Protein backbone atom coordinates (compact mmCIF):
# COMPACT_ATOMS: atom_id res chain seq x y z
CA UNK A 1 0.00 0.00 0.00
CA UNK A 2 2.82 2.38 0.78
CA UNK A 3 4.87 1.53 -2.29
CA UNK A 4 4.70 5.02 -3.71
CA UNK A 5 6.32 6.35 -0.57
CA UNK A 6 9.57 4.70 -1.52
CA UNK A 7 10.45 7.51 -3.88
CA UNK A 8 10.30 10.15 -1.20
CA UNK A 9 12.23 7.99 1.16
CA UNK A 10 14.74 7.42 -1.57
CA UNK A 11 15.62 11.07 -1.38
CA UNK A 12 15.47 11.28 2.39
CA UNK A 13 17.57 8.16 2.63
CA UNK A 14 19.85 8.79 -0.30
CA UNK A 15 22.74 9.43 2.01
CA UNK A 16 21.83 6.31 3.86
CA UNK A 17 22.10 4.23 0.75
CA UNK A 18 25.44 5.83 -0.08
CA UNK A 19 26.99 4.14 2.93
CA UNK A 20 28.07 0.58 2.41
CA UNK A 21 27.47 -0.21 6.05
CA UNK A 22 25.15 1.77 8.22
CA UNK A 23 26.15 3.19 11.52
CA UNK A 24 23.66 4.11 14.16
CA UNK A 25 24.60 7.73 13.53
CA UNK A 26 23.71 7.45 9.80
CA UNK A 27 20.27 6.25 10.75
CA UNK A 28 19.76 8.96 13.33
CA UNK A 29 20.70 11.61 10.76
CA UNK A 30 18.16 10.31 8.32
CA UNK A 31 15.46 10.21 10.96
CA UNK A 32 16.20 13.82 11.86
CA UNK A 33 15.25 14.69 8.30
CA UNK A 34 12.06 12.68 8.56
CA UNK A 35 11.26 14.62 11.71
CA UNK A 36 11.63 17.94 9.91
CA UNK A 37 9.42 16.85 7.05
CA UNK A 38 6.68 15.82 9.47
CA UNK A 39 6.87 19.01 11.54
CA UNK A 40 6.76 21.14 8.39
CA UNK A 41 3.57 19.29 7.48
CA UNK A 42 1.99 20.34 10.81
CA UNK A 43 2.15 16.92 12.40
CA UNK A 44 2.03 17.53 16.12
CA UNK A 45 5.32 17.92 18.00
CA UNK A 46 4.65 15.11 20.46
CA UNK A 47 3.27 12.81 17.81
CA UNK A 48 6.43 13.32 15.78
CA UNK A 49 8.58 12.77 18.82
CA UNK A 50 6.91 9.46 19.62
CA UNK A 51 7.01 8.43 15.99
CA UNK A 52 10.71 9.12 15.64
CA UNK A 53 11.40 7.36 18.93
CA UNK A 54 9.66 4.17 17.92
CA UNK A 55 11.16 4.16 14.45
CA UNK A 56 14.60 4.75 15.93
CA UNK A 57 14.17 1.92 18.40
CA UNK A 58 13.29 -0.48 15.63
CA UNK A 59 15.70 0.85 13.01
CA UNK A 60 18.86 0.84 15.07
CA UNK A 61 18.14 -2.67 16.21
CA UNK A 62 20.77 -5.28 15.47
CA UNK A 63 18.57 -7.08 12.94
CA UNK A 64 18.52 -4.03 10.74
CA UNK A 65 22.19 -3.19 11.04
CA UNK A 66 23.24 -6.76 10.38
CA UNK A 67 20.92 -7.30 7.44
CA UNK A 68 22.25 -7.33 3.89
CA UNK A 69 20.18 -4.30 2.88
CA UNK A 70 20.12 -2.07 5.94
CA UNK A 71 18.88 1.04 4.13
CA UNK A 72 15.91 -0.91 2.76
CA UNK A 73 15.19 -2.18 6.23
CA UNK A 74 15.14 1.30 7.69
CA UNK A 75 12.82 2.52 4.96
CA UNK A 76 10.53 -0.39 5.63
CA UNK A 77 10.40 0.42 9.33
CA UNK A 78 9.48 4.06 8.66
CA UNK A 79 6.87 2.99 6.16
CA UNK A 80 5.32 0.44 8.50
CA UNK A 81 5.20 2.81 11.44
CA UNK A 82 3.61 5.53 9.32
CA UNK A 83 1.06 3.04 8.08
CA UNK A 84 0.16 2.13 11.65
CA UNK A 85 -0.18 5.76 12.56
CA UNK A 86 -2.42 6.59 9.61
CA UNK A 87 -4.78 3.72 10.37
CA UNK A 88 -3.80 1.63 7.41
CA UNK A 89 -6.02 -1.39 6.99
CA UNK A 90 -8.57 -0.32 9.57
CA UNK A 91 -12.28 -0.12 8.78
CA UNK A 92 -13.18 3.51 8.19
CA UNK A 93 -16.63 3.15 6.69
CA UNK A 94 -19.65 4.81 8.22
CA UNK A 95 -21.62 2.59 10.54
CA UNK A 96 -25.34 3.21 10.35
CA UNK A 97 -26.44 -0.24 11.37
CA UNK A 98 -29.00 0.65 14.01
CA UNK A 99 -32.74 0.90 14.25
CA UNK A 100 -33.89 3.92 12.22
CA UNK A 101 -33.97 6.80 12.52
CA UNK A 102 -30.21 6.67 12.95
CA UNK A 103 -28.47 9.88 14.00
CA UNK A 104 -25.17 11.24 12.79
CA UNK A 105 -23.84 14.18 14.79
CA UNK A 106 -21.23 16.53 13.36
CA UNK A 107 -19.18 18.64 15.71
CA UNK A 108 -16.05 20.74 15.76
CA UNK A 109 -14.49 24.18 15.94
CA UNK A 110 -15.99 27.24 14.30
CA UNK A 111 -15.70 27.36 10.53
CA UNK A 112 -14.35 23.83 10.16
CA UNK A 113 -16.94 22.92 7.53
CA UNK A 114 -19.68 21.17 9.50
CA UNK A 115 -22.74 22.65 7.79
CA UNK A 116 -21.31 22.08 4.33
CA UNK A 117 -20.34 18.52 5.26
CA UNK A 118 -23.87 17.85 6.53
CA UNK A 119 -25.13 18.67 3.04
CA UNK A 120 -22.47 16.53 1.40
CA UNK A 121 -23.22 13.63 3.69
CA UNK A 122 -26.95 13.86 3.02
CA UNK A 123 -26.29 13.72 -0.71
CA UNK A 124 -23.97 10.74 -0.32
CA UNK A 125 -26.47 8.85 1.82
CA UNK A 126 -29.32 9.49 -0.54
CA UNK A 127 -27.23 8.01 -3.36
CA UNK A 128 -26.89 4.99 -1.09
CA UNK A 129 -30.69 4.81 -0.99
CA UNK A 130 -31.17 6.23 2.45
CA UNK A 131 -33.72 8.89 3.27
CA UNK A 132 -31.94 11.58 5.31
CA UNK A 133 -33.29 14.59 7.18
CA UNK A 134 -31.04 17.56 7.90
CA UNK A 135 -31.37 19.01 11.39
CA UNK A 136 -30.22 22.57 12.12
CA UNK A 137 -29.04 22.51 15.72
CA UNK A 138 -26.94 25.68 15.45
CA UNK A 139 -29.01 28.46 16.97
CA UNK A 140 -26.06 30.78 17.57
CA UNK A 141 -24.25 31.64 14.36
CA UNK A 142 -26.05 34.36 12.41
CA UNK A 143 -28.08 32.75 9.59
CA UNK A 144 -26.84 29.23 10.37
CA UNK A 145 -30.32 27.75 10.00
CA UNK A 146 -30.83 29.67 6.79
CA UNK A 147 -27.50 28.33 5.54
CA UNK A 148 -28.54 24.71 6.13
CA UNK A 149 -31.94 25.35 4.55
CA UNK A 150 -30.23 26.75 1.47
CA UNK A 151 -27.90 23.75 1.33
CA UNK A 152 -30.91 21.44 1.65
CA UNK A 153 -32.70 23.27 -1.16
CA UNK A 154 -29.67 22.96 -3.42
CA UNK A 155 -29.66 19.17 -3.14
CA UNK A 156 -33.37 18.62 -2.67
CA UNK A 157 -33.08 17.21 0.83
CA UNK A 158 -35.51 18.29 3.53
CA UNK A 159 -34.36 20.35 6.48
CA UNK A 160 -36.24 20.11 9.74
CA UNK A 161 -38.01 23.42 10.30
CA UNK A 162 -36.67 25.36 13.28
CA UNK A 163 -36.20 28.92 14.41
CA UNK A 164 -33.29 30.49 16.23
CA UNK A 165 -33.96 30.82 19.94
CA UNK A 166 -34.97 27.21 20.46
CA UNK A 167 -32.89 24.81 22.53
CA UNK A 168 -30.65 22.64 20.33
CA UNK A 169 -31.39 19.50 22.36
CA UNK A 170 -35.12 20.09 22.00
CA UNK A 171 -34.69 20.69 18.26
CA UNK A 172 -32.92 17.36 17.84
CA UNK A 173 -35.55 15.51 19.86
CA UNK A 174 -38.39 17.05 17.92
CA UNK A 175 -36.64 16.26 14.66
CA UNK A 176 -36.28 12.62 15.67
CA UNK A 177 -39.98 12.45 16.43
CA UNK A 178 -40.71 14.06 13.08
CA UNK A 179 -38.42 11.58 11.31
CA UNK A 180 -40.19 8.68 13.03
CA UNK A 181 -43.56 9.86 11.83
CA UNK A 182 -42.46 10.70 8.30
CA UNK A 183 -40.24 7.80 7.38
CA UNK A 184 -36.81 9.44 7.44
CA UNK A 185 -34.21 6.82 8.32
CA UNK A 186 -31.22 9.10 9.01
CA UNK A 187 -30.87 12.32 10.98
CA UNK A 188 -27.87 14.51 10.23
CA UNK A 189 -27.33 16.91 13.12
CA UNK A 190 -25.58 20.19 12.28
CA UNK A 191 -24.28 21.56 15.57
CA UNK A 192 -22.82 25.01 16.13
CA UNK A 193 -19.09 25.52 15.98
CA UNK A 194 -17.59 25.77 19.46
CA UNK A 195 -14.30 25.89 21.28
CA UNK A 196 -13.26 22.72 23.10
CA UNK A 197 -12.69 24.89 26.20
CA UNK A 198 -16.23 26.26 26.20
CA UNK A 199 -17.71 24.16 29.00
CA UNK A 200 -21.26 25.25 28.49
CA UNK A 201 -21.39 24.56 24.78
CA UNK A 202 -19.46 21.32 25.16
CA UNK A 203 -22.05 20.31 27.72
CA UNK A 204 -24.74 20.95 25.15
CA UNK A 205 -23.11 18.40 22.84
CA UNK A 206 -23.09 15.86 25.67
CA UNK A 207 -26.77 16.40 26.17
CA UNK A 208 -27.53 15.95 22.48
CA UNK A 209 -25.50 12.77 22.57
CA UNK A 210 -27.30 11.48 25.67
CA UNK A 211 -30.68 12.14 24.16
CA UNK A 212 -30.22 11.11 20.53
CA UNK A 213 -27.58 8.40 20.99
CA UNK A 214 -25.98 9.08 17.60
CA UNK A 215 -24.52 6.04 15.87
CA UNK A 216 -21.82 8.24 14.37
CA UNK A 217 -20.26 11.25 16.06
CA UNK A 218 -17.99 12.85 13.51
CA UNK A 219 -15.39 15.41 14.49
CA UNK A 220 -14.98 17.81 11.59
CA UNK A 221 -11.49 19.27 11.24
CA UNK A 222 -9.93 21.70 8.82
CA UNK A 223 -6.97 20.17 6.95
CA UNK A 224 -5.06 23.42 7.42
CA UNK A 225 -5.09 23.10 11.21
CA UNK A 226 -1.72 23.38 12.89
CA UNK A 227 -0.30 22.08 16.14
CA UNK A 228 -3.49 22.75 18.10
CA UNK A 229 -5.35 19.95 16.28
CA UNK A 230 -4.43 17.40 18.94
CA UNK A 231 -5.61 19.52 21.87
CA UNK A 232 -8.95 20.15 20.23
CA UNK A 233 -9.53 16.62 18.95
CA UNK A 234 -8.60 15.11 22.29
CA UNK A 235 -11.08 17.33 24.12
CA UNK A 236 -13.94 16.48 21.77
CA UNK A 237 -13.07 12.79 21.90
CA UNK A 238 -12.74 12.63 25.67
CA UNK A 239 -16.13 14.21 26.14
CA UNK A 240 -18.06 12.57 23.32
CA UNK A 241 -16.13 9.45 22.38
CA UNK A 242 -16.23 10.39 18.71
CA UNK A 243 -16.59 7.62 16.15
CA UNK A 244 -14.57 9.23 13.38
CA UNK A 245 -13.12 12.30 11.74
CA UNK A 246 -13.98 14.29 8.64
CA UNK A 247 -11.06 16.24 7.23
CA UNK A 248 -12.19 19.24 5.17
CA UNK A 249 -10.62 21.64 2.66
CA UNK A 250 -8.19 19.07 1.33
CA UNK A 251 -8.68 20.61 -2.11
CA UNK A 252 -6.04 23.21 -1.23
CA UNK A 253 -2.33 22.74 -0.76
CA UNK A 254 -2.22 22.12 2.99
CA UNK A 255 -0.04 19.14 3.79
CA UNK A 256 -2.62 17.92 6.25
CA UNK A 257 -0.50 16.79 9.17
CA UNK A 258 -3.59 17.33 11.32
CA UNK A 259 -4.95 14.05 9.95
CA UNK A 260 -2.05 12.13 11.35
CA UNK A 261 -2.05 13.98 14.64
CA UNK A 262 -5.76 13.54 15.26
CA UNK A 263 -5.64 9.88 14.32
CA UNK A 264 -2.71 9.39 16.66
CA UNK A 265 -4.19 11.05 19.74
CA UNK A 266 -7.77 9.81 19.43
CA UNK A 267 -7.19 6.46 17.77
CA UNK A 268 -10.31 7.21 15.73
CA UNK A 269 -10.26 6.76 11.97
CA UNK A 270 -10.53 9.56 9.45
CA UNK A 271 -13.63 8.47 7.57
CA UNK A 272 -14.27 11.15 4.98
CA UNK A 273 -12.51 14.07 3.35
CA UNK A 274 -13.90 17.32 1.97
CA UNK A 275 -12.48 18.17 -1.44
CA UNK A 276 -14.28 21.38 -2.26
CA UNK A 277 -17.14 23.73 -1.52
CA UNK A 278 -19.55 21.96 -3.83
CA UNK A 279 -21.89 19.50 -2.24
CA UNK A 280 -20.64 16.49 -4.17
CA UNK A 281 -17.04 17.09 -3.05
CA UNK A 282 -16.90 14.42 -0.35
CA UNK A 283 -14.63 11.42 -0.66
CA UNK A 284 -13.59 8.43 1.36
CA UNK A 285 -10.24 8.67 3.09
CA UNK A 286 -7.18 6.87 1.76
CA UNK A 287 -4.40 6.57 4.35
CA UNK A 288 -1.71 5.96 1.73
CA UNK A 289 -2.54 9.09 -0.28
CA UNK A 290 -2.61 11.11 2.89
CA UNK A 291 0.77 9.81 3.97
CA UNK A 292 2.23 10.79 0.62
CA UNK A 293 0.79 14.23 0.93
CA UNK A 294 2.14 14.75 4.41
CA UNK A 295 5.57 13.70 3.24
CA UNK A 296 5.32 16.29 0.51
CA UNK A 297 5.13 14.24 -2.64
Amino acid at each position, binding site marked *: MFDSLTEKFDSVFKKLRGHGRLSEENIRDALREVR*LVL*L*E*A*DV*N*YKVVKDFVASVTARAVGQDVLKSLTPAQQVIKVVRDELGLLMGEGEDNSLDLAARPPVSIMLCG*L*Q*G*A*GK*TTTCGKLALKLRKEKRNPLLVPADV*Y*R*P*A*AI*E*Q*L*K*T*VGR*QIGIPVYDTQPGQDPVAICEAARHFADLNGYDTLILDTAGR*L*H*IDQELMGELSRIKASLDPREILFVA*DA*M*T*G*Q*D*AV*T*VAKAFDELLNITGVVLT*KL*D*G*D*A*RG*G*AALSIRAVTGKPVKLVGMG*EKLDALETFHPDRMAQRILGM
Partner: protein
Amino acid sequence: GAGKKVDADLLEEIEEILITADLGMKTTRELMGSLEKRFDGTDGATPEALRRALQEEIGARLRLEAAPIDYSAASPFVIMVVGVNGVGKTTTIGKLAHYLSSQGKKVVLGAGDTFRAAAAEQLVIWGERSGVDVIRHDEGSDPAAVAFDAARAAVARKADVLILDTAGRLHTKVNLMEELKKVRRVLDREIPGAPHETLLVLDATTGQNALVQARLFKETVAISGIALTKLDGTARGGIVVAIGCELNLPVRFVGIGEGIDDLRPFEPDLFVEALFQRD
Protein backbone atom coordinates in the same frame (compact mmCIF):
# COMPACT_ATOMS: atom_id res chain seq x y z
CA GLY B 1 10.61 27.89 35.97
CA ALA B 2 12.85 29.36 38.62
CA GLY B 3 16.08 27.64 39.62
CA LYS B 4 16.41 25.92 36.28
CA LYS B 5 19.70 26.02 34.40
CA VAL B 6 20.19 26.68 30.72
CA ASP B 7 20.91 23.23 29.42
CA ALA B 8 19.88 21.03 26.55
CA ASP B 9 16.59 20.25 28.27
CA LEU B 10 15.65 23.87 28.57
CA LEU B 11 16.56 24.55 24.96
CA GLU B 12 14.44 21.62 23.89
CA GLU B 13 11.59 22.94 25.98
CA ILE B 14 11.84 26.30 24.24
CA GLU B 15 11.93 24.63 20.86
CA GLU B 16 8.79 22.73 21.78
CA ILE B 17 7.00 25.92 22.81
CA LEU B 18 7.87 27.61 19.53
CA ILE B 19 6.91 24.68 17.34
CA THR B 20 3.66 23.95 19.14
CA ALA B 21 2.74 27.64 18.84
CA ASP B 22 2.94 27.16 15.04
CA LEU B 23 5.94 29.40 14.44
CA GLY B 24 7.21 26.86 11.95
CA MET B 25 10.58 25.15 11.62
CA LYS B 26 12.36 27.92 9.75
CA THR B 27 11.50 30.65 12.25
CA THR B 28 12.06 28.31 15.18
CA ARG B 29 15.54 27.40 13.94
CA GLU B 30 16.40 31.05 13.33
CA LEU B 31 15.28 31.97 16.82
CA MET B 32 17.08 29.05 18.43
CA GLY B 33 20.19 29.95 16.43
CA SER B 34 20.16 33.52 17.60
CA LEU B 35 19.68 32.38 21.19
CA GLU B 36 22.60 30.02 20.99
CA LYS B 37 24.76 32.77 19.56
CA ARG B 38 23.71 35.27 22.20
CA PHE B 39 24.26 32.97 25.11
CA ASP B 40 27.26 31.10 23.84
CA GLY B 41 29.69 30.90 26.71
CA THR B 42 27.89 33.53 28.76
CA ASP B 43 27.78 32.95 32.49
CA GLY B 44 24.69 35.02 33.12
CA ALA B 45 22.50 32.84 30.94
CA THR B 46 19.53 32.22 33.19
CA PRO B 47 16.30 30.78 31.86
CA GLU B 48 14.72 34.14 32.56
CA ALA B 49 17.30 35.98 30.46
CA LEU B 50 16.78 33.46 27.72
CA ARG B 51 13.05 33.98 27.73
CA ARG B 52 13.41 37.75 27.66
CA ALA B 53 15.84 37.57 24.75
CA LEU B 54 13.46 35.33 22.87
CA GLN B 55 10.53 37.65 23.46
CA GLU B 56 12.60 40.55 22.17
CA GLU B 57 13.55 38.65 19.04
CA ILE B 58 9.98 37.66 18.30
CA GLY B 59 8.61 41.11 19.14
CA ALA B 60 11.10 42.67 16.73
CA ARG B 61 9.78 40.45 13.97
CA LEU B 62 6.21 41.57 14.67
CA ARG B 63 6.74 45.29 15.18
CA LEU B 64 6.79 46.37 11.57
CA GLU B 65 7.29 49.81 10.13
CA ALA B 66 3.83 49.77 8.55
CA ALA B 67 1.74 52.87 9.21
CA PRO B 68 -1.51 52.30 11.09
CA ILE B 69 -4.77 52.43 9.17
CA ASP B 70 -5.75 56.06 8.58
CA TYR B 71 -9.47 56.03 7.98
CA SER B 72 -9.48 59.71 7.11
CA ALA B 73 -7.11 59.19 4.19
CA ALA B 74 -10.06 58.80 1.85
CA SER B 75 -13.77 59.22 1.89
CA PRO B 76 -15.21 56.71 1.74
CA PHE B 77 -12.25 54.72 3.02
CA VAL B 78 -12.62 51.29 1.45
CA ILE B 79 -11.63 48.05 3.17
CA MET B 80 -11.75 44.80 1.25
CA VAL B 81 -11.69 41.62 3.32
CA VAL B 82 -10.31 38.39 1.88
CA GLY B 83 -9.20 34.95 3.02
CA VAL B 84 -9.71 31.22 2.73
CA ASN B 85 -12.94 29.50 3.75
CA GLY B 86 -14.30 29.76 7.24
CA VAL B 87 -11.55 31.85 8.83
CA GLY B 88 -13.88 34.55 10.15
CA LYS B 89 -14.13 37.22 7.45
CA THR B 90 -17.83 37.99 7.78
CA THR B 91 -17.72 37.96 11.58
CA THR B 92 -14.68 40.24 11.64
CA ILE B 93 -16.51 42.67 9.35
CA GLY B 94 -19.48 42.63 11.70
CA LYS B 95 -17.25 43.48 14.65
CA LEU B 96 -15.29 46.10 12.73
CA ALA B 97 -18.50 47.78 11.56
CA HIS B 98 -19.58 48.03 15.17
CA TYR B 99 -16.18 49.35 16.30
CA LEU B 100 -16.11 52.04 13.62
CA SER B 101 -19.72 53.09 13.88
CA SER B 102 -19.45 53.39 17.64
CA GLN B 103 -16.68 55.91 16.96
CA GLY B 104 -19.23 57.95 15.06
CA LYS B 105 -18.20 56.85 11.58
CA LYS B 106 -20.83 56.11 8.99
CA VAL B 107 -20.23 52.60 7.72
CA VAL B 108 -21.64 50.74 4.72
CA LEU B 109 -21.13 47.01 4.17
CA GLY B 110 -21.04 45.21 0.83
CA ALA B 111 -22.10 41.56 0.74
CA GLY B 112 -19.57 40.46 -1.85
CA ASP B 113 -19.94 36.77 -0.99
CA THR B 114 -22.69 35.74 -3.40
CA PHE B 115 -21.58 32.12 -3.42
CA ARG B 116 -21.82 30.56 0.03
CA ALA B 117 -25.26 29.54 1.26
CA ALA B 118 -26.84 32.40 3.24
CA ALA B 119 -23.63 34.45 3.31
CA ALA B 120 -25.51 37.69 2.61
CA GLU B 121 -28.14 36.89 5.27
CA GLN B 122 -25.30 36.42 7.75
CA LEU B 123 -23.82 39.82 6.93
CA VAL B 124 -27.26 41.46 7.03
CA ILE B 125 -27.73 40.19 10.59
CA TRP B 126 -24.36 41.67 11.53
CA GLY B 127 -25.39 44.94 9.87
CA GLU B 128 -28.57 45.03 11.95
CA ARG B 129 -26.59 44.50 15.14
CA SER B 130 -24.76 47.78 14.69
CA GLY B 131 -27.34 49.62 12.61
CA VAL B 132 -25.23 49.67 9.48
CA ASP B 133 -26.50 49.51 5.87
CA VAL B 134 -25.73 46.38 3.89
CA ILE B 135 -25.71 46.35 0.10
CA ARG B 136 -26.56 42.90 -1.21
CA HIS B 137 -27.59 41.06 -4.34
CA ASP B 138 -29.14 37.66 -4.84
CA GLU B 139 -27.15 34.49 -4.31
CA GLY B 140 -25.22 33.51 -7.40
CA SER B 141 -24.90 37.03 -8.79
CA ASP B 142 -21.62 38.65 -9.83
CA PRO B 143 -19.53 39.81 -6.85
CA ALA B 144 -18.07 42.60 -8.99
CA ALA B 145 -21.60 43.95 -9.44
CA VAL B 146 -22.06 43.98 -5.67
CA ALA B 147 -18.76 45.84 -5.32
CA PHE B 148 -19.94 48.36 -7.91
CA ASP B 149 -23.28 48.97 -6.17
CA ALA B 150 -21.70 49.08 -2.74
CA ALA B 151 -19.15 51.66 -3.89
CA ARG B 152 -21.86 53.80 -5.49
CA ALA B 153 -24.05 53.53 -2.39
CA ALA B 154 -21.17 54.40 -0.06
CA VAL B 155 -20.44 57.54 -2.08
CA ALA B 156 -24.11 58.52 -2.39
CA ARG B 157 -24.72 58.01 1.32
CA LYS B 158 -21.55 59.89 2.21
CA ALA B 159 -20.18 56.96 4.16
CA ASP B 160 -16.86 57.30 5.93
CA VAL B 161 -16.00 53.64 5.53
CA LEU B 162 -17.08 50.92 3.11
CA ILE B 163 -16.22 47.34 4.06
CA LEU B 164 -16.58 44.72 1.38
CA ASP B 165 -17.00 41.05 2.28
CA THR B 166 -15.82 38.43 -0.19
CA ALA B 167 -16.45 34.71 -0.50
CA GLY B 168 -13.94 32.43 1.15
CA ARG B 169 -11.57 30.92 -1.39
CA LEU B 170 -8.48 28.80 -1.28
CA HIS B 171 -5.43 30.68 -2.54
CA THR B 172 -4.76 27.81 -4.94
CA LYS B 173 -7.95 28.39 -6.96
CA VAL B 174 -6.69 30.54 -9.79
CA ASN B 175 -10.04 31.58 -11.25
CA LEU B 176 -11.37 32.63 -7.85
CA MET B 177 -8.25 34.66 -7.18
CA GLU B 178 -8.69 36.34 -10.58
CA GLU B 179 -12.23 37.19 -9.55
CA LEU B 180 -10.83 39.12 -6.58
CA LYS B 181 -8.63 41.15 -8.90
CA LYS B 182 -11.68 42.10 -10.89
CA VAL B 183 -13.48 43.22 -7.74
CA ARG B 184 -10.49 45.39 -6.88
CA ARG B 185 -10.52 47.00 -10.30
CA VAL B 186 -14.21 47.82 -9.95
CA LEU B 187 -13.64 49.44 -6.56
CA ASP B 188 -10.72 51.46 -7.90
CA ARG B 189 -12.74 52.64 -10.87
CA GLU B 190 -15.57 53.87 -8.65
CA ILE B 191 -13.47 55.26 -5.83
CA PRO B 192 -9.95 56.09 -6.98
CA GLY B 193 -7.32 54.42 -4.83
CA ALA B 194 -9.76 51.88 -3.40
CA PRO B 195 -9.43 49.52 -1.70
CA HIS B 196 -7.32 51.55 0.69
CA GLU B 197 -6.85 48.58 2.99
CA THR B 198 -7.03 44.94 1.98
CA LEU B 199 -7.30 42.78 5.06
CA LEU B 200 -6.37 39.13 4.95
CA VAL B 201 -8.18 37.20 7.64
CA LEU B 202 -6.20 34.31 9.11
CA ASP B 203 -7.48 31.71 11.55
CA ALA B 204 -5.12 31.30 14.51
CA THR B 205 -5.68 27.54 14.48
CA THR B 206 -4.07 27.34 11.03
CA GLY B 207 -0.61 25.89 10.79
CA GLN B 208 2.10 26.38 8.18
CA ASN B 209 -0.38 26.82 5.35
CA ALA B 210 -1.16 30.34 6.58
CA LEU B 211 2.21 31.51 5.26
CA VAL B 212 1.36 30.25 1.78
CA GLN B 213 -2.05 31.90 2.03
CA ALA B 214 -0.49 35.24 2.92
CA ARG B 215 2.08 34.96 0.15
CA LEU B 216 -0.46 34.22 -2.57
CA PHE B 217 -3.10 36.70 -1.43
CA LYS B 218 -0.39 39.34 -1.26
CA GLU B 219 0.70 38.57 -4.80
CA THR B 220 -2.81 38.69 -6.25
CA VAL B 221 -4.61 41.37 -4.29
CA ALA B 222 -1.82 43.27 -2.54
CA ILE B 223 -3.07 42.69 1.00
CA SER B 224 -1.92 45.39 3.38
CA GLY B 225 -2.73 43.87 6.74
CA ILE B 226 -3.89 40.84 8.66
CA ALA B 227 -6.73 40.13 11.03
CA LEU B 228 -5.93 37.11 13.19
CA THR B 229 -9.09 35.42 14.46
CA LYS B 230 -10.00 32.76 17.02
CA LEU B 231 -7.27 33.64 19.48
CA ASP B 232 -9.76 32.83 22.25
CA GLY B 233 -9.04 29.15 21.78
CA THR B 234 -5.82 27.33 22.69
CA ALA B 235 -4.06 27.97 19.36
CA ARG B 236 -1.36 30.65 19.50
CA GLY B 237 -1.29 31.82 15.88
CA GLY B 238 2.51 31.80 15.83
CA ILE B 239 2.64 31.65 12.06
CA VAL B 240 2.14 35.43 11.94
CA VAL B 241 5.71 35.76 13.19
CA ALA B 242 6.96 34.08 10.02
CA ILE B 243 4.53 36.15 7.97
CA GLY B 244 5.77 39.37 9.57
CA CYS B 245 9.36 38.43 8.76
CA GLU B 246 8.93 37.21 5.27
CA LEU B 247 6.15 39.39 3.92
CA ASN B 248 6.37 42.46 6.10
CA LEU B 249 2.63 42.37 6.74
CA PRO B 250 1.34 43.95 9.94
CA VAL B 251 -1.32 42.28 12.05
CA ARG B 252 -4.03 44.92 12.40
CA PHE B 253 -6.64 43.19 14.53
CA VAL B 254 -7.15 40.07 16.57
CA GLY B 255 -10.45 38.26 17.03
CA ILE B 256 -11.07 36.85 20.47
CA GLY B 257 -14.59 35.52 20.26
CA GLU B 258 -17.85 35.44 18.35
CA GLY B 259 -19.39 38.47 20.04
CA ILE B 260 -19.64 41.93 18.53
CA ASP B 261 -17.06 43.36 20.94
CA ASP B 262 -14.54 40.59 20.44
CA LEU B 263 -12.15 42.50 18.19
CA ARG B 264 -8.96 44.11 19.46
CA PRO B 265 -6.09 46.05 17.95
CA PHE B 266 -3.03 43.82 17.73
CA GLU B 267 -0.51 44.30 20.51
CA PRO B 268 2.79 42.53 19.79
CA ASP B 269 3.87 42.40 23.42
CA LEU B 270 0.66 40.81 24.64
CA PHE B 271 0.78 38.39 21.74
CA VAL B 272 4.34 37.31 22.48
CA GLU B 273 3.52 37.00 26.18
CA ALA B 274 0.67 34.65 25.30
CA LEU B 275 2.96 32.50 23.16
CA PHE B 276 4.80 31.52 26.31
CA GLN B 277 1.83 31.06 28.56
CA ARG B 278 1.46 27.39 29.31
CA ASP B 279 -1.94 26.22 30.43
